């Protein structure tokens, strides 16, 4: 299965129809240790089954406020609970897109529940041996990263 295409199409669609903020894929980094040093917010969700892994949605501070504001239809001044909720929810939606694409390929996965984190100098790491794909998207306000880490059984 082409995870990059699934994530790209799923993310673009979710941003167009749910967040109401079109975003553009800039580049894809595969299987490298990526440090998202500018990320201030991350929403993430784990999944298990035939493949197990984790999906993370991270953004710069400005981007996080615009995305949340657009999703909720209100002005967002700080990286507050609304931002954390929004990023948890977006991670959940993107994982849902991955789950249904996996289902079409006969790969069965189940989703956990999302968590989100806001902070300084965040560094996210995966499990040694897991595959990792990072898609970098931009909108006018800044950058957003979708990260998939997975291990095929």
């Amino acid at each position, binding site marked *: 299965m082409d995870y990059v295409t699934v994530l790209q199409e799923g993310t673009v669609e979710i941003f167009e129809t749910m967040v109401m903020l079109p975003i553009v894929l800039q580049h894809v980094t595969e299987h490298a240790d990526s440090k998202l040093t500018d990320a201030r917010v991350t929403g993430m969700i784990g999944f298990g089954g035939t493949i197990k892994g984790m999906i993370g949605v991270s953004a710069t501070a400005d981007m996080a406020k615009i995305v949340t504001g657009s999703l909720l239809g209100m002005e967002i001044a700080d990286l507050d609970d609304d931002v954390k909720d929004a990023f948890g929810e977006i991670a959940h939606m993107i994982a849902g897109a991955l789950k249904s694409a996996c289902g079409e390929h006969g790969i069965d996965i*189940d989703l*956990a529940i999302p*968590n989100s*984190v806001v*902070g300084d100098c965040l*560094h996210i790491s995966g*499990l040694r041996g897991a595959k990792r794909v990072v898609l970098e998207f931009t909108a006018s306000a800044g950058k957003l990263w979708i990260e998939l880490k997975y291990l095929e059984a």
Partner: protein
Amino acid sequence: MDIKNKIVESTKEIFSTMVMMDVTVVDQDPAARQAIKDGISGIIGLAGTHKGVLAIHIPAPVALAITGSFLGMEVEEINEDVEDAVGELANMLGGNVKTILSDNGRDIELSLPTTISGTNYDFQTAKDVEVTALAFATDTGTFSVELQLER
């Protein structure tokens, strides 16, 4: 079934047999409820009949001591060894929780563990979850273990 006591038992067992460190449960508000100033968290998702997240939040000095004891070497900063050790702790705790929640761990799948480290960060759980949070003491300081389960 008392999940709280079983998590305490599992945590103590993992620390005494794998990390080679004795920990005691302490009666204090677990760190997860506040912003974490400088530390690392290990997180693993549970999916299937029970959906949730198991997280362990460890202040930096405690994480260094735990990793040092786990690997039998001196660790001076939050590096890949510490991330691996904390991810592995989340994985082991998740494995035990899976067995606690479901007969022999069937019907629950674990995700991959992830670690997050930073100088000042703050977690938010999903809504409508039941949270069991516990604080543990080591010689270097306290850390917390948190289980969130969807209602």
